[in-house]
Structure formats: structure tokens, C-alpha cells
């Protein structure tokens, strides 16, 4: 069986050049935390790792800009910073799950970060001169 995790398996999958992949990776590293806070803020209730990824896929039009595996360490770091709060609950199948909810200071951070994001997109749109609309 082909090792599903090897780079070649992935390359066939999304057919990107190494430069493109590198650029996308660097970009997504910066936005994962903001994307997570956005998802948690609009979530109907507490979410665990896999359900966060599913919701992100649904709302993000199935885009794979943010790889699901990159969410887990960021979830823990946001919790460490007090922006998310978590509880562990037993699950019917498998090990107990950690459910996350956004904290008030997480909402404040989301407001500020969304402002910074807006500033960034306005700046980039200005630089790219409408190229992004194509």
C-alpha cells in the first residue's frame, strides 16, 4: 500500500508547484488562529477537533487552504492564551473528546484581529490592483 502521507501522494492530489505550496503554507500559518476564532464565534455550541475541521470545510466552500492537522496545536495555543475554553467529555466511540468554546477575551481578540485582517486585505487589494477579482 502506498504511504498516504508521503509528499508524492499529496502532490498528485493538488497538483501544485513547490513554490505555490510553500506560499500557501506560509499564508495559512498566519490565518489559522483567526479562522479558528471566527468558526468558534459562529458555532452553535462547543466543538471538538474533528467537528471544527468539518465546519471549517463546510463554511469555507471545501477549500483546503487550512490543513486540518494544523488546527490542533493552534487550538491548544489559543486555549493557553485564554481565548478559548475547553472541557473534556466522554464520547460514545473512542477516547474522550475535548470541546472548545470561545471566551469573552477570545471575542475581543477576534474583533481586533478581524480589523487587522480587513486592513491587510484592503492593502493587498490596492497593491494587486483588482487582480484578485479575476
Amino acid at each position, binding site marked *: 500500500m*502506498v504511504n498516504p502521507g508521503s509528499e508524492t501522494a499529496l502532490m498528485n492530489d493538488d497538483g501544485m508547484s513547490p513554490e505555490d505550496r510553500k506560499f500557501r503554507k506560509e499564508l495559512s500559518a498566519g490565518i489559522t488562529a483567526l479562522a479558528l476564532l471566527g468558526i468558534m464565534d459562529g458555532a452553535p455550541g462547543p466543538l471538538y477537533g*474533528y467537528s471544527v475541521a468539518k465546519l471549517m470545510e463546510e463554511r469555507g466552500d471545501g477549500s483546503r487552504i487550512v*490543513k486540518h492537522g494544523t488546527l490542533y496545536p493552534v487550538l491548544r495555543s489559543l486555549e493557553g492564551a485564554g481565548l478559548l475554553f475547553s472541557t473534556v467529555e466522554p464520547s460514545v466511540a473512542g477516547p474522550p473528546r475535548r470541546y472548545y468554546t470561545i471566551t469573552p477575551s477570545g471575542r475581543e481578540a477576534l474583533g481586533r484581529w478581524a480589523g487587522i485582517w480587513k486592513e491587510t486585505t484592503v492593502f493587498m487589494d490596492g497593491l494587486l490592483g483588482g487582480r484578485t477579482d479575476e
Partner: protein
Amino acid sequence: MNKGIGLYLDDFRKHLKGCDRAIVQDALADAEDHLTAGLENLGKERPELTEEEALREVVASYGSPAELAEQYRRVEAFTVPALKPQRARNERSALKRFVGVVTEPSAWAAFLYMIISLVTGIFYFTWTTNGLSLSLGLLVLIIGVPVAWLFFLSFRGLALVEGRMVEALLGVRMPRRAVFIRKGEGWWGSIKGVFTTRSTWSSALYLILMLPLGTLYFSFFITLAAVALSFIASPVIELVFHEPVIDAPVEWWIPVWLYPAVVALGAVIFMGMLHLARLVGKLHGRMARAMLVS
């Protein structure tokens, strides 16, 4: 466990080489949990896919081991454990560093750990020795196996709890997730897994060791703290409450001119005690990492 997931995890483990062991444990548990759930879900949504295609799909959205290992390293680098000891500020003079310990939360936290380790130590020891002897005793009967299994599972749980405490108070990065119980190995496989994992046994040993260690830590540090505090409070005790600080074997009143020296000595003992607590905490943290992390 699915063979493909196993291969992925092996590859992931290779890419995480050199990482903190606690991070490796967390990262592998995250991946196994997510991939297993993803595969199950995709199997229901699109049953026409072969197992290999489904796994390829799930892995494509999860990320390659190389990029994820990089992400874990990057994110963990700035996720400092609570109260991680600040780096030694070498530019400060030796005297300032010695006195400055009273303003460092990490030293106070280590002292707190030493004090509560008596209580946790007694509980861990009682639970573990009872668990082991009950399991061993009942092993001749058929109910012995589930009893032993439950107790061994509880050792892992206690190890995780103790790990969280060690991280919070001693500033050592410990796992945030329990060792993953593999699905799909059958009930006998998962029962066997609990007994054959090295960390279960070393955790049990750690829990037993916590009684002598906790007693030692507690008595040593509480004695130092009590002596230091009684020295510091001696003027108040003698002048206000008219009680001699030293009354055995003979009553002895500290002469007034000696008060500043006695108070200063008390302060030095207390600060030295905080330094010592931090040092012992560091050593204990190392031991906890060696024994509690899989």
C-alpha cells in the same frame, strides 16, 4: 487500527523526531483521532470509495506529516507552559538574583508543589498499591482481568492529571492528551495494550514513588519554611505576645540588639528555600517526564 493510518503515524513520528516527547504524544493522538474519525465519516458519505482512496482523501485535507511536524514545532515554540521559569537573567548581580526569587512565580509554584505532594503522594500510593494487590489477588478468578484492566487504565488517568499539575506548577511541558486507546484492535487487543505499554508500568511506579518523595518534600520544605518564618516573626512574637521563640530545652529570649540579624537570617533561609524548591522541582519535572510520558 487501519494499516494506512499506521503507516501515516510512523511517518509522522519520523518527522517529529527531535521534538519534545510530550508534543509527539499529543500530535500522534491528534492525528490518529482525526484520521480514524475522518475515514469513518467518509465511508458513510461516499461508500463507493475504496479504503485507499478514502484514506488519501482524508490525509489530503489533514496535511502531510512534514508540514504538520513543522506546524507543531512552530506553534509549540511560543505556547509556553504556564509559569515556565523565566530564563536566568545573567546580567543581574548574584545578590539581586538571590533576593529576586521572591518575585518569581515559578519558585512559589514549585514550593506549592512540594507542599501538596504529601497529599497527592498519599492518595497515589494508596490507590496504586491497592489497585495492584487487588488485581493480583483477583487474577485467579475471571473477574480479575477486568478489575486489573480498570485499575491500569486509572493509572494512566492519574498520570495525565499529575502531568497537568507538574506542567502548571513546575513549568515542564507534559502531555495534554492521554495515550490514545487504539480502535479496531479488538477488545482483547485493547485490553492487552494497556498492560503491555511501558508508560503504564512506569506511571504506576511513579505513583508509588510519590509517597516517599512527597513525604520527603513536604517535611523538608515545611521545616525550612517554619524555621525561616519563626525567625522573621521573632520580634513580634517576643515583644507583642511575650512568648520566647526558643523555649526548649531552656527558655531563651533573643536580645533586642540581635533582632535585625535574626530577622535577616530568617529571610535568607526563606529565599534559599525558594531557590531549593525550584531546583528540586526541576529535577522532579525531569523524572516525571521520563516516567509519565509514553
